[in-house]
């Protein structure tokens, strides 16, 4: 059975279990909302300040949310040793990663989709004119977050102190992605929006490098 077919079957499982329990999505969305609302109340920023600081705030919120959301994605597979069952069933173990990566990216994008209108209202930043460009930036940023987060989740799931380990590994590793996403978003929120291809190139390079590394070495991460 091909990699894509296996991935499709596993992605269906990921979505079904999450939408049935809604554990990850609910906690992540509520967490990000709280962060954005609290900052808005505390800083009470003007539109100009929002354009300058909003993108950084948004991506930091997504980064913390991702570290919350990604933590359990491999831990869940350890409860009943289902990871072993998957390893015995799939032709290519990369399918296990790919399905979780796709699911996590979808969950992050859904969180961002719900959060962006709230951000636009609370911070008085018009977003409608740059929705397609923003979608591209958020898609690339979310893929990068998911690739690294899913990989590190597989590593940390087998370690002691796993709850601390993931954020400790994830946050420094994502620094280039955070800077590129923030700068690309800031350029789109400026009074004269521009799509900064230099920052997008960094995002694309980040995604491709980490995805290739997981494809090459992912199987070793799943071993006991």
């Amino acid at each position, binding site marked *: *059975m091909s990699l894509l077919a*296996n991935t499709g*079957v*596993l992605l269906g*499982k990921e979505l*079904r*279990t999450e939408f*049935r*329990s809604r554990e990850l999505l609910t906690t992540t969305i509520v967490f990000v909302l709280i962060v954005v609302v609290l900052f808005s109340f505390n800083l009470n920023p003007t539109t100009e300040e929002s354009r300058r600081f909003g993108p950084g705030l948004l991506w930091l919120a997504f980064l913390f949310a991702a570290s919350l959301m990604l933590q359990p994605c491999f831990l869940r597979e350890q*409860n*009943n*040793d*289902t990871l*072993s*069952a*998957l*390893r*015995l*069933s*799939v*032709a290519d173990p990369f399918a296990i990663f790919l399905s979780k990566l796709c699911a996590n990216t979808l969950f992050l994008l859904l969180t961002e989709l719900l959060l962006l209108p709230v951000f636009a209202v609370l911070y008085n930043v018009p977003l409608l004119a740059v929705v397609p460009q923003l979608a591209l930036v958020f898609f690339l940023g979310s893929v990068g977050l998911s690739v690294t987060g899913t990989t590190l989740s597989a590593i940390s799931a087998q370690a002691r102190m796993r709850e601390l380990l993931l954020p400790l590994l994830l946050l420094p590793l994502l620094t280039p992605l955070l800077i590129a996403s923030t700068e690309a978003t800031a350029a789109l929120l400026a009074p004269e929006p521009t799509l900064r291809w230099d920052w997008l190139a960094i995002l694309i390079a980040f995604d491709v490098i980490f995805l290739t590394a997981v494809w090459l070495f992912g199987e070793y991460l799943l*071993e*006991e």
Partner: protein
Amino acid sequence: MPPDARPIGRRLQEINIRLENIDKRYGGLYALRRVSLEIASGECVVFAGRNGSGKTTLLRVVAQLVKPSAGNLTFPLAQNGSGPARKNIGFVAHATMVYDELTAEENLLLFARLLGIADARNRVERLLSEVGLSVRRDSLVRTFSRGMRQRVAIARALLHEPSVLLLDEPSTGLDPQGVNWLAATLRRLRDAGATILMSLHGESEISSLATRGVRLDAGAVVADTQAGAGLRSILTFAGA
């Protein structure tokens, strides 16, 4: 018993699984120590031993879920000899290896599709009926008793009618009817040529299927015998 002192008759059969000087260490602790075994196609081998003797680790090494620290695991009958696809292995572990948040049917369909089983739905329906869970097919596994979960776990391992079946205390949680069904199923698979390796504690209807018994102690093979009185002594000693 040294590995090279096994009965000569076994060498005449086709060897399906060969373990040569397998070590498995976790830090400084040996879970397996120089384990060498040759298991022929169609054999039903029972591994016995006290808790922590290495039975589970040995089964996981054969399933290729755990890499040995030293030694070789080979599958001479498999194409290219390096090992059958993991998909030819059915594994029932201590944990149920099924998802609590899916129904019994969803679990089996998921694994049937991953294994590329043609006509997955019919196969799943038949297995659900065999393990007596047709009525509860749409119930989430987390609502099941331990015995019912074990039935789903066994059904999952049998989905693709594997040529190598690894069972780690498979009767855990099963009621007498469940044990009878499992024994009958294993007998059918053994007679059809499947190689069965299982860990057990004490004698039972399932242990009567064994054609060979191996006792482990502190990760090492300390006895290896054909079925009969020798096998009974291995099981009873381990269960004591």
